[in-house]
């Protein structure tokens, strides 16, 4: 369980980091927190020739709000985000982060590293997709913005090329009339989820928008609008909050069937995951709707 030898570069500027990565001709790998990469190296599932450690690059340490976004640079650790009051501007981060591994891993693991790693059962990629966060990808050709929903292309596969660095991610700050829900079921706290959901509901006057993202249920986070299902359930329940989850169950059955396409494994069959997803989605959509209405009401009054 020891990594094979590798060359190690720790540049102090982004341009150097990009140049170093490019000079490896595809044999290099970025290391941020190492919480996903080191196990892979230890088990020798990968043997990169060079590791480019981005932790000395000061410009990747940005963390704060600007232009309606919370921006998180590539070296910002998950635990810092979890504990900084500014993260309250994106409530889903606070709801999801405690589920990412354990404290001892979040102290080193980065938000961007989790996105770049793109485990299909990981929490942060799902949050990014639900909010359609913007990822900044920088390579030899310069920087480009990629919406989260286009970033993930399969299990541990993303829009990042071998010479790209994910330099930052921007999450939209929650506005008035928005409410969120997050839940997952894992066998033990800190394990990857058997199934999980992220919900975002926006209430504006009579208009209601709802986005639902599932994780651990496909080869990547999967996001659909659930506005129609929510509207149907609201009609069915007569707007009564306690009846909303029950009323959502039926409309969400088809959605669960569509979104949950992972094969079953030793821990859970596909059907079980579908039921799990439907149940979690019904609850979290209801909560998100309730929170959105409250938030909209607070602003109105």
């Amino acid at each position: 369980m020891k990594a094979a030898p590798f060359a190690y570069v720790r540049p102090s500027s982004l341009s150097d980091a990009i140049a170093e990565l490019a000079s490896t001709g595809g044999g290099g790998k970025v290391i941020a927190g190492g919480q996903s990469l080191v196990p892979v190296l230890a088990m020798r599932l990968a043997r990169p020739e060079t590791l480019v450690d981005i932790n000395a690059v000061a410009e990747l340490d940005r963390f704060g709000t600007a232009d309606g976004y919370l921006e998180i640079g590539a070296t910002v650790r998950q635990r810092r985000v979890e504990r900084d009051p500014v993260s309250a501007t994106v409530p889903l981060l606070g709801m999801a982060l405690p589920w990412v591994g354990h404290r001892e891993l979040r102290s080193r693991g980065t938000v961007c590293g989790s996105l770049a790693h793109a485990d299909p059962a990981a929490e942060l990629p799902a949050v990014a997709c639900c909010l359609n966060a913007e990822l900044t990808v920088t390579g030899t050709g310069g920087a480009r913005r990629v919406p989260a929903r286009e970033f993930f292309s399969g299990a541990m596969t993303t829009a990042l090329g071998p010479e790209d660095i994910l330099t930052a991610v921007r999450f939209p700050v929650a506005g008035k009339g928005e409410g969120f829900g997050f839940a997952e079921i894992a066998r033990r706290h800190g394990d990857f989820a058997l199934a999980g959901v992220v919900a975002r509901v926006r209430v504006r006057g009579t208009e209601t928008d709802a986005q639902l993202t599932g994780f651990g249920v496909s080869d990547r986070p999967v996001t659909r609008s659930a506005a129609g299902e929510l509207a149907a359930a609201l009609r069915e329940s007569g707007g009564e909050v306690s009846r909303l989850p029950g009323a959502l169950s039926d409309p969400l059955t088809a959605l669960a069937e569509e979104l949950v396409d992972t094969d079953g494994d030793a821990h859970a069959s596909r059907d079980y995951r579908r039921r799990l997803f439907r149940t979690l989605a019904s609850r979290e959509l209801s909560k998100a709707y309730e929170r959105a209405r409250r938030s909209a009401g607070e602003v109105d009054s």
Partner: protein
Amino acid sequence: MTEVLAENGKPRAVKAAADDLVEVRMTVNGTPAVLSLPARVTLADALRDHLGLTGTHVGCEHGVCGMCTVLVDGEAARACLLFAVQLDGADIVTVEGLGRPDDLHPLQEAFGRNHALQCGFCTPGFLMSSYDLLSNQPEVTEEELPAELSGVICRCTGYRNILTAVRETKSAHPGGIPAPGNCAHRALVGRATGQAGVSTDGREVTEETGDTRRIDIVLPDGDPTIAVDVGTEIGVPVDAVWRVFDDVSLLARCLPGAELTEDLGEDQYAGRARVSVGPIKLAFKGVAHVVEHDRAGQRLRVLAQGQDTGGAQTQADIVLRTEATATGTVMRAEAKVYLTGRIAQFGRALAGDVSRRMFEQFADALRETATSGQAPTGPVAAPSALKLLFAPLFDRIRTALRRKSR
């Protein structure tokens, strides 16, 4: 070659080929340490093999079990998921830094009291993880404890006692738990298998190489591994004893296993010392500095520092005092001995017995030399394995028997 490119608030820039050694400077339990390592060495291995800190355990080596949990810049982290070279400038605290053997940290106390350990393999991980929890998230509730402590696995206790220990510590310290109690400047050295690290804080003259250069011997802070205060009656007059003290080469030959190799000037001497105790065989090379030679006040103070090829390190502060009596001289030795590496794992009690026995051998040789005015022929034999190991045991057995027969 490792190229160290720049320095800012962040770790220094580095570019190293796969077979290069990379320099990393970190603070470990309060002691600054400089290591030269291949990039692929994890922090866990660096601590264990290169710094001799085997309290950090290694289980799965891929982040799942939590055995290797240490504090990095005040927060718990998996030492098996970090390459040591990534930690340039970092502040590391391991379980060795948490409390002292004679003054345990409240968490350690609580673990002991509540039987929160059986085999003890997970204990360092649990202690460091729960220290992190209680120090950084003091608002944690009792209900949250199981989930918050789920990052470390225990195969023995069933967790109940561990949870109780952490809960008790939390409620006993509502204002926050005390900081780690055993972080101080001390020597850090690795095991024979690893390349030794060097601890430095700029207080030492770092250009020291081998035994031909004079160095400033800086003793570690904190308690010595062994403190000896022994006295013995030598049947020769004080003057005769001091004639030996005055001649350092003569004095050195009275020291069991010691050999003077060079006079470095300014009261510094290079030398070698061999100690073999049971299976342990150490050959130290080092320097001694006579910092006080006060014949009128009857006090001789020597600082010594030595390193063995396997990386065990010893430092000592020895004060010899004499006092004339009707029948000759009483010689007292007060020694503070700091040990790291293999020999330190030996246990304080036995190490203390061994050093007392060495003092007796020294006193015998001194008596002989003072009487004859001649150095013992050849250096006094290195403390022999069997004699040294068993003499303390026989002493103890004898004492025990005496007690019984009373």
